[in-house]
């Protein structure tokens, strides 16, 4: 550019002044025009025109500036209307989108109350859904850390008994015997890369103080190869010859934590109550299976384990390319019929299940159900926000009509309104993600399913994706109906001031939304109601124990198994302890039992001397147990200290045993023989039934042996006192004063046992109650909003009616008339929906049918009450309307 070129900007601006352009647009035009003038000026100068003349002739380009400003303002008015809502065809899509976003943001900022309620509503829906989805993601969608490529399977033997009932209820799983496993190791090298068994175990470490009991995983040597093919980090891993040898492998973590990573640990001996072991190796770092196990020991293989059903777990690693189905086919020859006890012919087969499936199969249904529940909640949020948008939209009809008259097409209007909804749902989504990730960590403890440690939910890309998708879908879902309704605005009627477009109150779509909201909330409430009723039923079951006045003390003497007098010393230990604890003030009874209620149980077949065979659950007790847990003695006596080794064997049975063994007339004095080795034992007492195994199961036939006759390694002590929890400290002191070294595992109120067995149902009821409660809350907010809006729209009409002498009741009825049928309709629809949905709920219920009339009636009434209240509160405002002000309101 030549240096003598004048600046044209001022000249151009002066001429554009009257066009009234948008400042940004004006500068752009000024820039373009001044470039044009520069070019013209340069051209004139290049042909020898002098500066002054060139300047004059250049400015002549703008001579017709009146026409220019007129034209520009005409064109740019088009521009300004399209900036709000122009025609899509006239500008690139993205530019239009940003305009919409900016416009939407402005519009949301101008109604902060509405925006806040809508965002909170959406955040609740999206947050809850995201939280539940995070668990679905971590449990169902993500591969196991122990098995990232999905090649580890569990191999199990199944027996299906003939008879009525579902296949599941007739199926029993058995762990395959060790001889089968060894066979398969040889035969199926083309299917399994490695196959082995493992079982749980404990090591009571004596070289630490106090004595520490840790879990030790017992494995067949090949099992380690199922998860990891790397060599040992130090020393070596198990080989076949290690079976039944006193050796151990430690985890890499334990190596560093317990032994400071000392390579000299190999060959070192660890002293344990269960027998000392020599450390032979360290697992490679990050070994993926049983990550919290410090000590690994070879599985002790006894003769009994050659057969099926020894209680271990068999895992195998499939060769690359081998599918689970192919493995099943390869094992199909194992399918056969087998004659079990009592001549029952059972179908026997091998089940092969991926480890992942094994881990989640009992949780899947619950998770889907929860997902359905939060989905309902999300839908309610959508409906709610749609209602809010409709209410708000009616106030915007004039604005929309003006835009439409400026040339915005209907699709363009809908696009703008939808962008606004998406903006709202994006805000809700961000808030929901924050809420969801908080809920995610908080919720895990309250889930009615077992979430394994390596399946804890975590933030992931998929979770972000889900949250985004949920937000976008919600945005469309709640935005479309109001947007279409609004875009259909009739220009002529809406632009006239003072005309209310919905003279009758709330629109049909508003009533539709209330119906939908109520129906969805009812479904959630029915779910919650049924869960609560199930829990109630469960809690109302009399366990048979007096749970409030008992304390459990799990303690064992530290006595090595190689001590020749171990059984006598154990017996003496408990005898002494029971006596010492009984002398504590406030203690009214002390006893002990081999396995606590709801903890574990064993089953055995027993023969009674009248030749009746009964399936029993045997337990060993010390005298005083019945009194300590509050089990009344129905006949005969408790076992006594005189019932010791050498004395004739005696047992106490429960009423159920008496019934099943058909000894109703006089059970005392009859004899019973259980298991393979036991001698005949005389029934000396009958106690009341208790639910020892689980609250939900039927009462078992139980036989209580005198522990001093059968000999037992560990017992749990139960003490009875008015205030059991206050005793814990005194109990500890008494135990500490014993001459033996002891291992205290637990001192806790007896109630804890019941809590543990009911926790799944409690959590389920809690979670569904929260969902139901949120559903009702959101639905109420929705109804409240729509009523309040209807009242505000009808201020004038109500004013007229009040002025003409309408009673408050009539006015109220007039306002609520719109909603009561909608609420009733929603309840009807919801009942129908719940009726359909509860069929899947059945499996989670206890003691109630899915169509429990009490629950259905109660939740319907509750929802009706909330619905009426939510519409009554804003309707009451109508009564306070001053007719004079109302008539002036427009």
């Amino acid at each position, binding site marked *: 550019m030549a240096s003598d070129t004048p600046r044209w900007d001022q000249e151009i601006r002066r001429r554009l002044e009257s066009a009234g352009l948008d400042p940004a647009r004006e500068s752009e*035009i000024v820039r373009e025009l001044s470039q044009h003038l520069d070019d013209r000026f340069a051209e004139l100068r290049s042909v020898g025109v002098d500066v002054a003349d060139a300047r004059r002739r250049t400015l002549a380009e703008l001579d017709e500036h009146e026409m220019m400003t007129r034209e*520009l303002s005409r064109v*740019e008015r088009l521009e300004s209307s399209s900036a709000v809502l122009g025609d899509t065809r006239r500008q690139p899509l993205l530019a239009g989108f940003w305009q919409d976003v900016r416009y939407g943001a402005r519009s949301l900022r101008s109604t902060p109350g509405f925006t806040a309620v809508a965002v909170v509503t959406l955040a609740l829906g999206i947050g809850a859904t995201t939280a539940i989805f995070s668990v679905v993601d971590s449990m169902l969608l993500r591969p196991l850390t122990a098995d990232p490529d999905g090649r580890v399977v569990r191999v199990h033997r199944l027996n299906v008994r003939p008879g009525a009932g579902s296949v599941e209820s007739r199926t029993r799983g058995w762990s395959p015997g060790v001889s089968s496993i060894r066979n398969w190791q040889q035969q199926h090298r083309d299917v399994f890369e490695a196959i082995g068994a493992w079982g749980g175990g404990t090591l009571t470490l004596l070289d630490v103080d106090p004595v520490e009991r840790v879990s030790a995983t017992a494995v067949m040597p090949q099992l380690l190869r199922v998860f990891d093919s790397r060599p040992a980090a130090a020393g070596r891993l198990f080989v076949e010859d290690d079976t039944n040898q006193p050796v151990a492998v430690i985890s890499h973590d334990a190596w560093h934590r317990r032994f400071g990573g000392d390579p000299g640990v190999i060959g070192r001996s660890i002293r344990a109550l269960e027998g000392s072991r020599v450390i032979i190796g360290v697992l490679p770092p990050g070994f993926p299976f049983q990550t919290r196990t410090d000590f690994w020991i070879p599985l002790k293989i006894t003769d009994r384990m050659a057969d099926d059903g020894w209680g271990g777990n068999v895992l195998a690693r499939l060769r690359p390319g081998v599918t689970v189905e192919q493995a099943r086919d390869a094992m199909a020859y194992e399918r056969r019929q087998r004659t079990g006890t009592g001549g029952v012919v059972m179908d026997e087969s091998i089940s092969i299940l991926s480890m992942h499936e094994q881990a989640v199969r009992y949780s899947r249904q619950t998770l889907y159900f929860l997902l359905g529940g939060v989905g309902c909640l999300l839908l309610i949020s959508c409906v709610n926000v749609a209602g809010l948008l409709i209410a708000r939209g009616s106030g915007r009809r004039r604005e929309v009509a003006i835009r439409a008259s400026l040339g915005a097409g209907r699709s363009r209007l809908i696009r703008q309104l939808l962008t606004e909804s998406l903006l709202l749902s994006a805000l809700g989504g961000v808030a929901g993600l924050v809420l969801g990730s908080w809920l995610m960590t908080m919720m895990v403890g309250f889930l009615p399913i077992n979430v394994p440690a390596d399946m804890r939910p975590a933030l992931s890309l998929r979770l972000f994706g889900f949250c985004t998708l949920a937000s976008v879908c919600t945005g469309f879902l709640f935005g479309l109906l109001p947007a279409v309704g609004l875009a259909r605005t009739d220009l002529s009627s809406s632009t006239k001031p003072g005309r209310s477009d919905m003279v009758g109150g709330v629109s049909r779509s508003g009533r539709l939304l209330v119906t939908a909201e109520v129906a969805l909330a009812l479904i959630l409430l029915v779910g919650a109601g049924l869960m609560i009723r199930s829990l109630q039923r469960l809690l109302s079951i009399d366990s048979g124990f007096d749970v409030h006045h008992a304390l459990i003390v799990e303690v064992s003497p530290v006595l090595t198994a190689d001590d020749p007098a171990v059984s006598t010393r154990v017996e003496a230990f408990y005898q002494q302890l029971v006596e010492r604890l009984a002398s504590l003030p406030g203690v009214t009874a002390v006893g002990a039992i081999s396995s606590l209620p709801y903890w574990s149980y064993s089953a055995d077949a027993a023969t009674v001397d009248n030749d009746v065979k009964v399936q029993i659950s045997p337990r060993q007790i010390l005298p005083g147990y019945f009194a300590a847990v509050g089990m009344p003695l129905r006949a005969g006596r408790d076992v006594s200290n005189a019932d010791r080794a050498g004395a004739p064997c005696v047992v106490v049975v429960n009423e159920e045993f008496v019934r099943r063994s058909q000894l109703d007339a006089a059970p005392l004095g009859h004899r019973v023989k259980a298991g393979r080795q036991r001698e005949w034992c005389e029934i000396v007492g009958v106690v009341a039934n208790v639910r020892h195994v689980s609250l939900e199961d039927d009462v078992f036939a139980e036989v209580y042996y005198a522990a001093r006759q059968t000999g037992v390694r560990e017992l749990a002590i139960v003490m009875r006192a008015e205030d059991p929890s206050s005793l814990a400290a005194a109990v500890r002191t008494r135990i500490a004063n014993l001459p033996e070294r002891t291992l205290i595992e637990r001192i806790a109120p007896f109630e804890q046992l019941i809590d543990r067995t009911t926790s799944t149902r409690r959590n389920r009821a809690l979670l569904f109650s929260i969902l139901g409660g949120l559903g009702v809350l959101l639905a109420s907010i929705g109804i409240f909003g729509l009523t309040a809006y209807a009242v505000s729209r009808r201020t004038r009409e109500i004013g007229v009616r009040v002025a003409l002498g309408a009673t408050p009741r009539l006015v109220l009825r007039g306002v609520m008339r719109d909603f009561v049928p909608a609420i009733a309709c929603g309840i009807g629809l919801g009942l129908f929906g719940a009726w359909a949905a509860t069929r899947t709920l059945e499996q989670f219920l206890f003691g109630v049918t899915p169509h429990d009339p009490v629950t259905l009636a109660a939740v319907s009434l509750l929802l009706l009450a909330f619905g009426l209240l939510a519409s009554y509160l804003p309707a009451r405002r109508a009564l306070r309307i001053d007719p004079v002000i109302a008539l002036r309101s427009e």
Partner: protein
Amino acid sequence: MHDRELKKGSAELLILSLLEGRQRHGYEIGKQIEARSEGTLRFSAAALYPLLYRLEKRGWLEGRWIEKSGQRRRRYYRITSSGRKILAEQRNAWQAFVAAINRVAGLERI
């Protein structure tokens, strides 16, 4: 008056035709019209730019600021696909119009 109205009516056709082959900036469009009509048709900046903006608003043109090396940023105009359709229509219409005028005015031999 006639001059102005005639120019305005045909201007759209002129501009679209000029942009058919390549994108051009405003000054270049003005110069091209002047050159190709051998000086008969001339648009001042005041007439040309509102026209360009109007066509752009209708979606027939697309204007973009482009920086070419060694030059300053300029607003270049490019014909859009709907602009091409309009161009074809206007050419036909113009042809028919000119033919009709010619026939009526006796400029065409029968």
